């Protein structure tokens, strides 16, 4: 009786995950795109996959999207197996792919109307929702425009609006702001943040650390098809980096030589081709030490640690190459 009560309590306190992956694997002939990854996403959570191009993020997203079939491992989305319930799962998803795939032959609003029908929704309901979403995506004044006439940022927002036409339980965003200018990115982040506030589960991939820091409650760092680390942006920075980073440049020919001499300064040093990164809780203090050694960097910069540093620490490589 007691044991029963305990089990019951657990299941009410911890909501069932909306996505659950165990040893999830995808192989193409000889190439392993995703090499057995495990993760869970809780309802309402904003979960990110951070990694460089070719890390297997998009492949993972296409498997979560119940489109690409897994080679091995277990995957459950909304409690269902995508191999047998693809259409049912997809009826509860919103998908923003890496490459926009709006229908260029249709006008802006028609893209939403047509897409809503794919979910079997009544036309009247779709029409109302389309107008709301055009408002949300700040495209109401472009409703009759041809898709080709829209800017990159507008197309992206229209794709997001289209992904929301069925009021999805989970929104999947693959590189949502890649290729957009800074202003367009900020508009998009603002819209995504609002969705997050409304309790929509977001799963996104990105190779921008600022994007992951802005939008994700929790993320996994992915490289070569494997998960390198997992946690909230703040905890990952805390665990794998220092509070501050001192970046110093000595000029490309003197870089290596200077690296030898500053050994022992800070907690850790990363030598990049064009600069040195000195990890420390007090960047200014390290800079003073360097100057006292008689070294005079051409430029120096003290900044907060970011996920970029986490990635560098975990893989020895830079995130955006």
């Amino acid at each position, binding site marked *: 009786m007691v044991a029963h009560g305990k089990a019951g309590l657990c299941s009410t306190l911890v909501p069932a995950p909306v996505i659950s992956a165990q040893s999830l694997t995808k192989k193409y002939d000889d190439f392993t795109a995703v090499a057995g990854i495990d993760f869970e996403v809780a309802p309402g959570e904003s979960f990110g996959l951070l990694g460089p191009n070719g890390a297997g993020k998009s492949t993972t997203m296409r498997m979560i999207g119940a489109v690409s079939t897994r080679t091995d491992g277990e995957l459950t989305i909304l409690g269902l197996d995508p191999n047998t319930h693809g259409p049912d799962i997809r009826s509860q998803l919103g998908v923003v792919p890496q490459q926009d795939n709006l229908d260029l032959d249709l006008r802006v609003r028609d893209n939403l109307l047509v897409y809503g029908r794919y*979910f079997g929704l009544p036309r009247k309901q779709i029409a109302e929702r389309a107008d709301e979403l055009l408002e949300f995506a700040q495209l109401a004044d472009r409703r009759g425009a041809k898709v080709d006439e829209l800017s990159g940022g507008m197309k992206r927002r229209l794709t997001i609006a289209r992904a929301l036409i069925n009021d999805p339980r989970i929104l999947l965003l693959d590189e949502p702001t890649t290729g957009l200018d800074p202003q367009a990115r900020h508009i998009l982040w603002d819209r995504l943040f609002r969705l997050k506030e409304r309790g929509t589960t977001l799963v996104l991939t990105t190779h921008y650390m600022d994007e992951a820091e802005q939008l994700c409650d929790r993320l996994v760092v992915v490289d070569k098809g494997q998960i390198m680390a997992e946690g909230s942006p703040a905890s990952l920075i805390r665990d794998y980096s220092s509070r501050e980073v001192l970046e110093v440049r000595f000029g490309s020919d003197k870089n290596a030589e200077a690296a030898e001499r500053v050994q022992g300064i800070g907690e850790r040093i990363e030598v990049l081709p064009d600069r040195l990164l000195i990890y420390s809780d007090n960047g200014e203090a390290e800079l003073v030490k360097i100057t006292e050694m008689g070294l005079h960097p051409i430029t120096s910069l003290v900044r907060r640690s970011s996920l970029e540093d986490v990635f560098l620490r975990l893989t020895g490589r830079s995130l955006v190459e």
Partner: protein
Amino acid sequence: MTVTDDARRALTSGAAPRRFGALYILEHRIRALRGYAWSAVMTSLGNPIVYLFALGVGLASLVPAGIGGVSYLEFVAPALLCTAAMTVAANETTYPIVAGFKWNPIFHGMNASPITGRQIVHGTMLFIALRMTFAVAVYYAVILAFGAVPSAWGILSVAIAVLTGMAIGLLISSYSSTLKDERGQLAMVMRFGFTPMFLFSGTFFPLSELPIYLQPIGWISPLWHGVELGRLATYGQPIAPWLIAVHIGYLVSIIVIGLWSTSRTVTRRLAG
């Protein structure tokens, strides 16, 4: 595994698309057609008029005795009807199929929703059949106006032409759906597939006029089977009953196999 609320909701909302997905695709394509409806109507009307004047009036004057007991115009009219369907098929199943994966990748967009690869193919083919029926019906009206249909059964030639066109379209889509890159392969299909079929299927002269070693082009060509049936419908060309069955069976088999193979290719590509 216990069924969660999420799962139950997904199963409910997935039910309608599972059943009607292909019709939703048809609806999409009809909406997209609005953008070029005018040019589609004009082509449907312009083509037959040009062909009937050129062949039925111009070329016919060189064949005053007619062919097989009917005037040249009556002989060529059901064949032209089939070639009209074949042209729609070629237009819709070559570049638009490659485009759906590549240049205007709507197939991927459709498949991210509950719609399956099979439904995408079925809906697209339904749309093509509808568009073809419209084009062929207009063509038939023009042929009637030229007085080229002696038999009351003539109207059946519309359905025959659509059957022929769809067989050819599905033959092409079985191939075009496999193309990941278009480097002139479709132009080759038109040059070495479409054009010989167009010319050597008993379209403009009876197949029996060809040397025996060229006649097999006609036998394997869906167009020849359709044209033979069309001639039966419009002027009662004598055909053995077993041969009628062969003609219909051949066209239907190609449609069934083509639908199956195109669906399989599209489904596999989308799931990659």
